[in-house]
């Protein structure tokens, strides 16, 4: 190395491109840490004496800084130096902390549970009290001055053996105890204040004494009574002789006997329970209103609950994945109303009523069906006997069948059935659903009876038909519409009649939910075209052969529409059916007035109504009013019609992608186009790394502190032992010297 040291340093720095004219701009992308490394290297080069190189005899590799390095090599030294530096830092920090420990102020709240959030105020207080007591008790264990008090204060705690306190040595119980006071009196000297223990013993002894006294008295009394009993007969004889003879039988009147009997019965009767507070009329009314409101709100919720069942919409229409296990429906949880009034009295009357459980429709009586049903429900209440539940399930299903078969009793059976349906819901629902196929066969084959139609009526009266989805109602509605859709221009009057009945039922079903049915509209137009006189004037159809009411009759025949007696041809029902149809047109225009398509419905059906009004307005003013109403509503709909604006929602961005053209693209690296997400991930990664590092540091520190503490303890004990041995040594030395002194002195005295 020629030249001065400064020169060579400059040269070295220039060589690394750290000083002087920078030849290339490239150096700018050199990282800072790299520069530092280089400078450190140069510095090391010029401070040779600072480097201590450990020469080893053998070539040994150790793991330092996470890699294999040769012991004694520069790299190894570097690492060990760094480690040493860390150790030193830790040491100094530890020293500092130790020095400051206990010297820096601050208040530490040591009250129990002050920072514990899980404890309530009372628990905290209780626990504190308990601890305080325990502490005090602990304190007093070795308290010398008040050992008697301790025995007293520890809440009557005394050592016992076989239930007797060890302190009392009364081994012979048979000897009557002396009154403790006597003993006291004998010893009598009020020398000192009695200890608690003595007081207790005294009390026990006293109580035993009194007990013994009581027992003795009792025994004496018993003896006396026995004696008296023995003498009783003699006394009685004397009495009998002295008194006149009484009548042998009771002289009580019949009434009295009955009264007594009743009293005795009442003794065993159930105690009268306190009745609920009597409610005023207003309160009852208010309660009823609230209940009603609740029910209406629940119904409303079910009506609009579209997503309750519509989530699996795509699956529903996707038939190919027919999973046989079926779908489950979330229905409304049945309100377990307090319909117990039927069975309440049955609970303790215990007498089964004399009604037989009907096994078929024939077992129902002709008269008083309602009463009969009530009796059966009462007699076979499930809690009365095992198997009653099963019987009642069957009964409810049978009752539904009966209701459908006997519409004339419906007024009575339907309320009963509705009441029972809340309790035996599943069985009823299952039975009604099982019936679907039969009813459908009847409808499609044209072999429809009144019972088939009343099946739908019964469903409407029992179940909530306004629901968005209902296990029973939904298939029923589909079936009604299927029937309406199956009618054609060739259908008979009987079929139209059934159709009209079904439309009526459908309209009742939808009186709240107002759901639209295309089939109904189609059926209306079809039926009207079949029934009005001279239909060609409306739709221009040439053929009037298929028309059922070809000519307007002079005096229209009116007949009641009957559900059970379907038209067979003997009664001319064309006019009443037509009137009913017109009325229904009025109903549907009113029902669907809020739909955007009312205009189209009105345009399709209005002409028919107007046409009918021409012929029958005189005979029936209702036709004319319906025609006016339909016309008005249609015109209003025409006026109010606005173009649809269904897509009013936030504009949805179209996802676009632009290529990045990264020259250093690395297919193994993960790129994220989302800047936010990328940054977030980066931050998360850094956080993770730092946490790891911090934990590592903390562990290292703890380890160091633990090591230091051990060292300190060792030091402490070493010091102690040293001190002790010093003391002992010195004592021994002194003693030895004294002993020698003594020996010498004795010797001297002996001699002297």
């Amino acid at each position, binding site marked *: 190395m020629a030249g001065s040291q400064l020169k060579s340093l400059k040269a070295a720095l220039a060589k690394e491109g750290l000083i002087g004219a920078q030849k290339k701009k490239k150096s700018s992308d050199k990282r800072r840490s790299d520069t530092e490394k280089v400078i450190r290297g140069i510095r090391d080069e010029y401070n040779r004496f600072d480097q201590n190189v450990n020469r080893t005899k053998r070539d040994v590799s150790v793991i330092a800084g996470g890699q294999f390095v040769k012991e004694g090599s520069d790299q190894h030294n570097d690492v060990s130096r760094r480690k040493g530096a860390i150790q030193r830092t830790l040491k100094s920090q530890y020293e500092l902390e130790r020095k400051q420990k206990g010297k820096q102020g601050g208040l530490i709240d040591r009250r129990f549970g002050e920072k514990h959030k899980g404890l309530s105020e009372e628990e905290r207080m209780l626990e504190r009290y308990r601890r305080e007591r325990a502490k005090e008790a602990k304190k007093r264990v070795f308290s010398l001055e008040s050992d008697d008090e301790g025995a007293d204060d520890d809440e009557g705690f005394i050592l016992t053996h076989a239930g007797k306190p060890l302190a009392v040595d009364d081994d012979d119980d048979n000897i009557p105890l002396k009154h403790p006071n006597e003993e006291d009196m004998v010893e009598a000297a009020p020398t000192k204040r009695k200890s608690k223990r003595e007081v207790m013993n005294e009390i026990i002894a006293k109580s035993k004494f009194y007990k013994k006294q009581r027992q003795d008295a009792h025994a004496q009394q018993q003896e006396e009574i026995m004696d008296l009993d023995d003498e009783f007969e003699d006394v009685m004889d004397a009495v009998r002789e002295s008194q006149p003879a009484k009548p042998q039988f009771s002289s009580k009147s019949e009434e009295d006997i009955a009264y007594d009997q009743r009293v005795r019965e009442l003794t065993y009767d159930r105690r009268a329970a306190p009745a609920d507070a009597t409610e005023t009329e207003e309160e009852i009314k208010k309660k009823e209103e609230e209940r009603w409101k609740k029910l209406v709100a629940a119904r409303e919720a079910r009506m609009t609950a579209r997503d309750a069942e519509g989530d699996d919409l795509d699956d529903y229409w996707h038939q190919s994945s027919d999973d046989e296990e079926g779908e489950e429906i979330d229905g409304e*949880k049945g309100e377990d109303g307090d319909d117990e009034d039927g069975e309440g009295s049955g609970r303790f009357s215990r007498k089964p009523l004399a009604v037989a459980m009907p096994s078929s429709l024939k077992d129902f009586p002709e008269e008083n069906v309602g009463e009969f049903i009530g009796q059966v429900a009462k007699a076979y209440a499930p809690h009365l006997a095992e198997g009653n539940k099963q019987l009642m399930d069957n009964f409810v299903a049978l009752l539904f069948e009966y209701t459908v078969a006997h519409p004339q009793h419906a007024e009575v059976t339907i309320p009963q059935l509705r009441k029972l349906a*809340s309790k035996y819901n599943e069985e009823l629902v299952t039975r009604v659903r099982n019936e679907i196929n039969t009813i459908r066969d009847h409808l499609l084959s044209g072999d429809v009876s009144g019972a088939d139609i009343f099946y739908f009526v019964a469903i409407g009266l029992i179940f909530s038909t306004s629901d968005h989805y209902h296990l029973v109602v939904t298939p029923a509605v589909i079936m009604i*519409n*299927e029937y309406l859709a199956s009618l054609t221009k060739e259908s008979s009057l009987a079929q139209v009649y059934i159709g009209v009945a079904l439309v009526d039922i459908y309209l009742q079903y939808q009186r709240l939910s107002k759901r639209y049915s295309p089939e109904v509209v189609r059926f209306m137009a079809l039926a009207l075209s079949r029934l009005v006189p001279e239909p060609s004037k409306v739709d221009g159809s040439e053929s009037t052969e298929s028309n059922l009411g070809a000519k307007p009759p002079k005096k229209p025949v009116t007949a009641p529409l*009957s559900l059970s007696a379907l038209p067979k041809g003997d009664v001319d029902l064309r006019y009443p059916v037509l009137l009913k149809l017109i009325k229904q047109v009025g109903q549907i225009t009113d029902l669907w007035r809020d*739909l955007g398509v009312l205009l189209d419905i009105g345009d399709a059906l209005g002409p028919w109504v107007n046409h009918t009004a021409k012929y029958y307005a005189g005979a029936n003013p209702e036709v004319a009013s319906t025609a006016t109403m339909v016309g008005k509503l249609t015109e209003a709909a025409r006026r109010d019609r606005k173009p649809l604006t*269904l897509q009013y929602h936030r504009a949805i961005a179209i996802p676009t992608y632009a290529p990045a053209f990264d020259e250093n693209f690395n297919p193994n690296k993960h790129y994220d186009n989302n800047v936010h997400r990328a940054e977030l991930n980066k931050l998360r990664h850094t956080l993770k790394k730092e946490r790891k590092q911090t934990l590592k540091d903390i562990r290292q520190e703890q380890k160091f502190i633990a090591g230091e503490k051990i060292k300190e303890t060792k030091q402490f004990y070493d010091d102690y032992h040293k001190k002790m041995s010093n003391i002992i040594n010195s004592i021994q030395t002194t003693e030895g010297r004294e002993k020698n002194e003594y020996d010498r002195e004795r010797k001297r005295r002996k001699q002297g």
Partner: protein
Amino acid sequence: MGKSTAKSAKSAKSAKSSTPKTKDVSRKRPEFTPAKIDALVAQLIDANALNNLVALLEMWQTHVPSVLAQGGDDEATARHLVGGLFKSFNHLIRENRMALPKHKYDEKKAVAVKWLNKQYSTFIDNLLSVVQQSNHAPSLTVDACDVLMQLVKAETEAHYTEAFFAEKPLRRVRQAVLASENPAVVAWFAEEYLSPYFDLRFYWFHNLAPEITEAMFDNYLVLVEHLRELKDQQFAEKQLPSRVVPEKFRAHFQEATLAVLTLPKLTHAHYQRIMANLHKRIIPHMHQPHQLMDFLTHCYHQGGDLPLLTLSSLWELMKHHNLEYPDFYTKLYALLTPEMMASTYRPRFMRLCELFLSSTHLSAQLVASFIKRLARLTLTAPVPATVAVVPFVYNLLKAHPTVMVMIHRPEGGADEFNAEETNPLKTGAISSSVWELEALTSHYHPHVATLARIYSEPFRKLRYNMEDFYDWDYSQLVQQEQRKRYKAAAALEFEERGVFGAGNYLEDWVA
């Protein structure tokens, strides 16, 4: 063989007429067992006992008619008899014992050959009658068909010329099959013989046209329905005689089919049947499909459901055979009627509509007209149709965003839709809105109502797979409902209402 046709027909008649007599004979000869038949056949083949043929054929006349009439246990034995006779005649044909001698002087042999041929034609007649009339003994019929075809094959192979095909016996088989009373046999025959054997197919349709009658219609269509399509390449793969070429087969087939189509007394049901098969089963086999143009155009202009059925064939012709059809969309538009929505052919029509409207080059006016018309139809359509229309229109809107104004028009404007206009380009539907589809959100079927709400939601879904929606009907919908299980209590009505009478549930009704 041809010479003996008339005679054999006569003998068949005489056989029938003499049935009561032969029954008396059967008492004398009770043996009608497989063992006996085997013995007779073995004797015939090994010991040249030709007279056994008489015994066998007599057996036939005694027992087979009753089997045919009633079926029964004897069917197995009858099948055995057919097999035995076939074995015998097959042996004779292969031994060349049935051909007339070349030299005239061999008279004795000629007499024997004539006699043999007579027996043979009796046998064939019997088989044909079995094929033609059997409804009770299907396996016997199938056996008879098999044997007949084996004999055709044997005759073909026994002939001295290479390119010979025994067409005459085949023709008789053809007549019998086409006149068969059992369509299952015809279907079986088409699948078993006509589909795999190309030469057979070739000769089968050769000169078939003049023989076609109304009675054969059903069987002919059954045959066509079960005829697998054949590619030219497949033809080439088989080593067939030079005469058998695909073009000629197609020409024969076309000739026969046109003969069927031009039968004078076809009913509506017949046409429906033809149309159902035309595009898939008939057009691919035809030599010049464009010959169907007039027929199809005519059908397309008919009323009823015939135009629906014609569509797919017309499409086939337009797509592959350069048929120009100017008013196609106008006609298609006219087909969208309430009747179509209720028709059983609705899924097929909707599928085709999807195909025809899938082009993105259609004008917005046209698409709007179709959408509006479909929407109008849902006002009175049955649920199964509504189910299909909702996603169908969604897909159309998605494919033609210009038509989105029909569901979203914030700036307003007059509705100029003219429902009476027949030209879909001039209806003005694009100025209208589809209130009808909006109304479906309150449809009584819960799933349709939910489905219809897609129009008021962002159009995120790319498109609906229409196959899920086409083929619904009411029974499936009811079944779908029935499949649902009871889970929680069904909600009950809480309003107390009377049943009959004014103000009650059924106001104008009595029990």
